[in-house]
């Protein structure tokens, strides 16, 4: 008896569907998904947003600045913060973030760093990054736990897929500096 021609096609289709439904494909293409909790990344990320994370290496230079990353904290929690300091930077955090004495211009950030979270100069070595929440008045981040190592960073936030009204790619904030000479 002749086998129906569509049979292999059906098998393949079933397999693809099964693989898709298991979400295993996500891991194969080095992606994962997370739900956002907390308000330290407002207004870019709100609690209840669902985010697609690309598990790839973080640039070792300025191109890492402004990326929103998922990182593994010392207490094993997964955190969502933005990279503000990259390897080689010397940063000081007060009312502004200064890189080698020049104040960063950060339109994505808001709120003032509480005086208790001011930090003197942090010099970042190879593979070290400084991460901050965009909500500077209410975030526990590198101002508390210091620099994070590249190995702690699990991936880069690339897409918000929920809620559908706010669906969109997540862009890296460009690194800009305030005009020099503002106050002494």
């Amino acid at each position, binding site marked *: 008896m002749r086998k129906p021609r569509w049979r292999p096609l059906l098998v393949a289709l079933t397999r693809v569907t099964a693989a898709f439904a298991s979400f295993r494909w996500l891991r194969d293409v080095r992606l*994962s*998904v*997370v*739900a*956002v*909790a*907390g*308000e*330290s*990344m*407002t207004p870019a*990320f709100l*609690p209840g947003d*669902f*985010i697609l*994370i690309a598990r790839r290496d973080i640039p070792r230079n300025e191109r890492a600045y402004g990326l929103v990353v*998922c990182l593994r904290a010392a207490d094993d*929690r*997964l*955190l*969502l*913060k933005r990279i503000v300091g990259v390897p080689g930077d010397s940063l000081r955090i007060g009312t502004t973030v200064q890189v080698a004495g020049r104040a960063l211009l950060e339109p994505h950030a808001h709120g003032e760093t*509480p*005086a*208790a*979270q001011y930090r003197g100069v942090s010099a970042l070595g190879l593979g070290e990054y400084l991460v901050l*929440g965009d*909500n500077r*008045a*209410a*975030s*526990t981040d590198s101002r*508390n736990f210091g620099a994070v190592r590249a190995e702690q960073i699990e991936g880069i936030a690339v897409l918000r*897929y*929920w809620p559908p009204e706010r669906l969109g790619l997540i862009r890296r904030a460009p690194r800009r500096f305030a005009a020099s000479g503002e*106050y002494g």
Partner: protein
Amino acid sequence: MQIRPLIERFVRPATVAYAHCDLPCGVYDPAQARIEAESVKAVQQRYQNAEQMRGANQTLEDYRSRALAIKEERANMVKEHLWVLWTDYFTPAHLEKYPQLHDMFWKATKEAGAAKKSQDPEQGQRLLDAIAEIDKVFWETKQPA
């Protein structure tokens, strides 16, 4: 039937990423007001010594104008920091224990207002003293009862 919650449940990730803040939101410290008030007083001193302080390529008038602009701004920040303490940190229970609290804030914010008009460092010192009184009460309230 609502379709949205169904979809949401289907696409909800199993993992949570915390954009967190471990601190109770609202870290209060009169030091914020004090630091700005220090600036105010320093500007008042610089205004008085403008002749020596100004840059080589700055006229006296320019130097003093800039000093005034910065002082205006800093004095306003003193007011804002004090208001936050007054309205957000202190509670009616504190007021019962420290009935002079309202008066202290009234005087301190008045001094901050006066600092905008005054170029006298002694006035700046009065502002600092008024903040120091609030600071004392603030840290007393932080002591375990």
